[in-house]
């Protein structure tokens, strides 16, 4: 209960009174978040909300709070802050799950690219699928987009089956593919106009060009743009139909760090428009920067799912001890064997990931002082996300 009350205050603080609508949010029976405006957000999905707040008549009220875990409320807060910032009105937000995947399997011959993956993405959520090359990320997303047929399992995107849904489905999604060419003979403006034409609702070309920061290149042929600029045209083409769900397949792979940060800003812009975003990436940092929730895939299966904080706390190791290894004549067994954590050498430095930093540190310093050694730049830190990621996928990323 105490955690709930804290969360409640956080919510109130971040919300203020800016959000319009009768009812904004509830945390449902199964701990899945329901967002929606209007009186029936909970009734529509058929579950009794444990927490509902709204401004029907009275100012923000928080009712029926019984058991909401803090990470979930973190998401509520995060997302509502975004809604509040945009002053969105009711029709901009869709209710319930935008994407539901159950026991998805895809095999090519004998190899299973995706092996029994289940997850759900809520409307308005930014969902990252993270994993090394060959983990099944792109295959999963391509099945959701309708580009690939699944071998078995259930998939619903916006309530439709992408494998059989046709024009009406593609009218509501936006796809930024990893490998899709653009007609090089057209100018940026021409290509956006052409690809935007079949959508029933579309964003104005000039607005899109501005969003992806290509105003100066608007009348330049695509062939004359740099690789990064072409990727931004890609993004504009994914957004031209004002989609409800946007798929971004490795949107920044191959970018330099500055270009990556600029693209993140663009993606944040999208999320502030209330869109559901599914992105694949093999950068943990990117997933943490952009996503509400992260699904970690390795070899076709889910190895973890949750917010970045949950992923971090899900591991039993949380600290890292590093130091420069001094030159010693004896074997290192006396140092390494009693350690609780796991150690690995890196550039003449020793790195120990441990759930028991105090005990391990005491052992290490005792070992060093007994031998009169000084440990060069000895540090104890909490593990960074890359460590979390590598530990989750169980192997360093394989370079293709």
């Amino acid at each position: 209960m105490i955690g709930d009350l804290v969360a409640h205050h956080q919510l109130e603080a971040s919300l203020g009174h800016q959000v319009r609508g009768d009812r904004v949010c509830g945390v449902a029976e199964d701990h899945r978040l329901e967002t929606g405006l209007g009186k029936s957000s909970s009734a529509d999905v058929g579950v009794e909300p444990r927490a509902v707040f709204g401004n029907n008549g009275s100012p923000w009220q928080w009712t029926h709070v019984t058991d909401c875990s803090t990470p979930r409320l973190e998401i509520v807060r995060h997302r509502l802050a975004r809604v509040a910032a945009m002053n969105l009105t009711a029709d901009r937000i869709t209710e319930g799950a935008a994407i539901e995947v159950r026991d998805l399997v895809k095999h090519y011959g004998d190899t299973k690219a995706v092996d029994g993956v289940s997850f759900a993405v809520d409307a308005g959520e930014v969902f990252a699928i993270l994993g090394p090359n060959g983990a099944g990320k792109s295959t999963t997303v391509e099945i959701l987009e309708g580009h690939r047929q699944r071998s078995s399992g259930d998939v619903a995107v916006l309530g439709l089956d992408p494998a059989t849904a046709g024009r009406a489905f593609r009218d509501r999604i936006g796809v930024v593919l990893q490998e899709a060419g653009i007609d090089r003979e057209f100018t940026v403006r021409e290509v956006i106009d052409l690809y935007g034409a079949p959508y029933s609702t579309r964003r104005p070309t000039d607005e899109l060009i501005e969003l992806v920061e290509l105003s100066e290149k608007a009348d330049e042929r695509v062939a004359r743009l740099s690789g990064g600029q072409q990727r931004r045209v890609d993004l504009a083409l994914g957004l031209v139909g004002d989609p409800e769900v946007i798929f971004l397949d490795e949107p920044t792979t191959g970018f330099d760090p500055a270009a990556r940060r600029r693209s993140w800003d663009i993606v944040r812009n999208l999320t502030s428009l209330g869109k559901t975003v599914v992105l694949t990436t093999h950068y943990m940092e990117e997933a943490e920067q952009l996503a509400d929730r992260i699904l970690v895939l390795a070899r076709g299966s889910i190895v973890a799912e949750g917010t970045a904080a949950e992923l971090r706390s899900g591991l039993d190791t949380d600290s890292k001890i590093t130091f420069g290894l001094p030159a010693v004549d004896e074997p290192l067994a006396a140092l390494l064997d009693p350690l609780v954590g796991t150690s690995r050498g890196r550039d003449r430095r020793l790195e120990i990931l441990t759930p028991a930093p105090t005990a391990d540190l005491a052992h290490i310093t005792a070992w060093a002082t007994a031998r009169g050694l000084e440990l060069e730049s000895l540090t104890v830190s909490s593990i960074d996300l890359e460590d979390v990621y590598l530990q989750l996928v169980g192997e360093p990323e394989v370079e293709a």
Partner: protein
Amino acid sequence: MNNVSLLLLHIRAQNRIFWRVPIGAFFALALPVVMLVLFVALFGGDEFTTEYGFVSRAQFYTPALAVFSAASATYTNIGINLATRRDEGILRRVRGTPLPPWIYLGGVVGSGVYVAMMGTAFMTALGVVAYGVNIELAKVPAMMLTFVVGSAVFAMLGVALAAMASSASAAPALANATLLPMAFISNVFVSFEGEAPSWLVLAGDIFPLRHFALSYGEALSPFSDAPAIVWERLGVMLLWGLLGALVAWRKFRWEPSVGSSTTRGRRSRRQR
């Protein structure tokens, strides 16, 4: 936007691409003109025996090369373009939008026919104006009908060519390896003049180009009577169009071929 205006939009867009890629315009439009000028200059203006009578070189080569121009603008250009765009992932992008696939293909085919029409009209006009080739108003409908059927059939075969080509680099080879030998046995580059081996004549009769060239030539020939429509020839062409449509329908893919040079290049660049 309704389907008709979408189709027109795509035909216009494909035309724009055509004019912005000089190499395609050269092969489809300029090369046949160069060939007409060269052939007439090389062989002189003497009359000679052809399948439709004793006519001047220009009277033979003008319709023959006009038809060749139409076949290049449709069959070769469409086949190569679609295969290239498939490997570049452009077709894959198109499939991710609500644009109906038939409208995209319709734009490509429509633009091919439009370009073919310009090439054929220009060649025919050049023959009439520069070389005094015979043309009669009464036979213009036959000429136009032949053109429409012929270019539509070769456009369909172009889509089928893209469906059969395993990659973008295979498409030009496949296009030339089929169209050029066909042109030699189809009264395009040379006239059989009644003395070719019968198996070659038979081969020419099986494929659609000879029927296209002869029908079109017939409509210009001073010896044929109006309306000069040769229904059997149009029938053979239409059968080929049907075959092309069948192959396209069964085999056409929108996804890049696995390991195609373009895809591989992009992938290795991205992932280093």
